[in-house]
């Protein structure tokens, strides 16, 4: 089995180089159709690969920001997305059977690392075995989804059925190992850590992986949702008590669909991390460009734009009945080059299976530090970037029909994460995760 897996990886590795080359020429999809085929053994051949890139591969030609450099980072983002959404088990390829449990869902969740009692987390291998066992029984041991608020408490996102979005965070082994080795999983450990927090960097030369963290945004699937267009898991939906409104702590089980995914990757070329963000394609229209009759997850043409991209009134609690759905539009359209890459990847996914759920996910953008040694933030580009399901209310504002962006206020991955700090008051290397640590209770 091990030998088979190695061969599969080698084939995939060689193929993805061809795919990147053809995608760069703008004819990736058409040229790759011939590459997709079912072998005699039933395996699907595709240029898409389960191999996570170590770092971005920059073009050797002149740095043209809007051209080849941006393209390189966007290709890195898609390669990462495909790799971490690859089937967690078995020998199938991504989306071969429509949907699949993913690699990143086997990673450690933040609540599995930063335990309420501050004790050391269980080892990585134990978690993996446990997760693998659970993956076939998702109905019995689903993910527990409690978090409903977006960063900086800017408010919950409410879908067209009045349901709150749910969020979760997971990290890869390299990131987990760093936290575990340095005992950063509790407050006391962070206070005792006198070094500078510096997560592993992916390195193309050394062929080593860096820290990778993902933040996922889920919606409860319900009326109006075409479930064939979502990556789905069964989850426990947990609502916290709000005594002032007579709401008790409660949980129920439901199918949830992935609507947003951030991927943060620390690399040698980008020590301020590479920030990739994806969304389900039905989330929201671009500002002023809603398609008549189309069902959006977070937009209803009949509702008008009076509350566009505005957080709901407080109090915020998922248990309050009759809440008004969020009205969301994307203020910054997806870059045309990024969209072209989206289109070519979608064709590759459709070639594997016309019913692949992964064809309904699109790269919104990739932010990276263009001049990483110039300042702490490294001159991020694009300057602003927002996921409509994760930074809904920080996309900028519309004043007299014009979009206005504000430095330090409008969403910027690097700009925001630069302010992250440990419990010891030290820079946390662009992640707020360490602030999840609890005090050790002996």
């Amino acid at each position, binding site marked *: 089995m091990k030998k088979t897996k190695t061969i599969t990886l080698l084939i995939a590795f060689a193929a993805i180089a061809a795919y990147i080359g053809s995608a760069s020429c703008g004819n990736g999809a058409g040229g790759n159709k011939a590459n997709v085929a079912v072998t005699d053994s039933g395996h699907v051949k595709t240029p898409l690969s389960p191999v996570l890139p170590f770092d971005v591969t920059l073009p050797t030609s002149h*740095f*043209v*920001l809007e051209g080849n*450099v941006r393209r390189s980072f966007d290709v890195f983002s898609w390669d990462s997305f495909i790799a971490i959404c690859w089937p967690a088990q078995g020998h199938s390829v991504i989306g071969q059977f429509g949907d699949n449990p993913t690699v990143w869902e086997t990673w450690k969740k933040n609540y599995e690392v930063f335990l309420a009692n501050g004790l050391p987390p269980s080892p990585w291998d134990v978690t993996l075995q446990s997760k693998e066992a659970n993956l076939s029984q998702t109905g019995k041991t689903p993910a527990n989804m409690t978090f409903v608020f977006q960063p900086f408490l800017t408010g919950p996102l409410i879908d067209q059925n009045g349901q709150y979005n749910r969020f979760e965070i997971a990290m890869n082994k390299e990131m987990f190992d760093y936290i575990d080795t340095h005992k950063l999983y509790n407050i006391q450990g962070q206070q005792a850590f006198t070094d500078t927090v510096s997560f592993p960097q992916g390195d193309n030369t050394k062929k080593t992986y860096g820290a990778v963290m993902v933040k996922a945004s889920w919606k409860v699937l319900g009326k109006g949702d075409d479930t064939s267009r979502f990556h789905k898991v069964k989850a426990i939906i947990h609502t916290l008590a709000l005594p002032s409104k007579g709401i008790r702590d409660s949980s129920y089980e439901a199918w949830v669909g992935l609507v947003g995914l951030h991927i943060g990757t620390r690399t040698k070329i980008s020590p301020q991390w590479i920030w990739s963000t994806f969304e389900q394609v039905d989330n929201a229209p671009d500002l002023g460009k809603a398609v008549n009759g189309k069902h959006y997850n977070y937009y209803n043409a009949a509702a008008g734009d009076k509350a566009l991209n505005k957080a709901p009134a407080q109090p915020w609690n998922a248990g309050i009945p009759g809440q008004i759905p969020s009205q969301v539009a994307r203020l910054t359209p997806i870059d045309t080059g990024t969209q072209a890459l989206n289109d070519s990847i979608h064709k590759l996914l459709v070639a594997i299976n016309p019913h692949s759920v992964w064809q309904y996910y699109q790269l919104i953008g990739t932010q990276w530090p*263009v*001049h990483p040694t110039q*300042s*702490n*933030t490294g*001159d*991020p*580009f*694009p*300057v602003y970037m927002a996921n409509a399901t994760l930074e809904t209310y920080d996309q900028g504002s519309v004043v007299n029909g014009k979009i*206005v*962006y*504000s*430095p*330090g206020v409008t969403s910027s991955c690097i*700009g925001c994460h*630069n*302010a*992250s*700090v440990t419990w010891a*008051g*030290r*820079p*946390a290397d662009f992640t707020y995760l360490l602030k999840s640590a609890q005090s050790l209770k002996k």
Partner: protein
Amino acid sequence: MTLDEFVSLSAALTGYPVSTLQPVPDTQQIAATLFAELNLASNNIPAAQLDELTQVWNSISATPPPDLPAAVQEKIIENLAITRLAQNIIYLWFFGTWYDLSKNPNSFTSPNIDHVVSPLAYTNGLVWGEMGAHPMGYSVGQYGYWANVPTLPQIN
């Protein structure tokens, strides 16, 4: 005036190299944003003044670097016909702000004309680096930077 002329003139007027004013790649497009101010009708820039500044700059731009500051001083700063416009270009870069050309720029005196060009132009104003400071409410400093003594840039 072209964007390239604007950037090279700006380098001579501010003392900052072109690579700082218009880095490659240029993520924030500050130079292009500021340059657009010269073509903004509401800024009321006399066309003759802009043309003369362009011509004067083109006549001295090839001056050897050691002699360039003196040439700029003589041909632009001491030329009353264009010195005010040159001054406004310096203000653009340092404060991200456009001031009414017909008024003394010591304060906002023409609310319909004086304006901050854009939030990015303001936060990227050269004045902040000159002071070793940052605009109110916005900093790219790492957590705890406020405990450190400000460092001032060395301009060659």
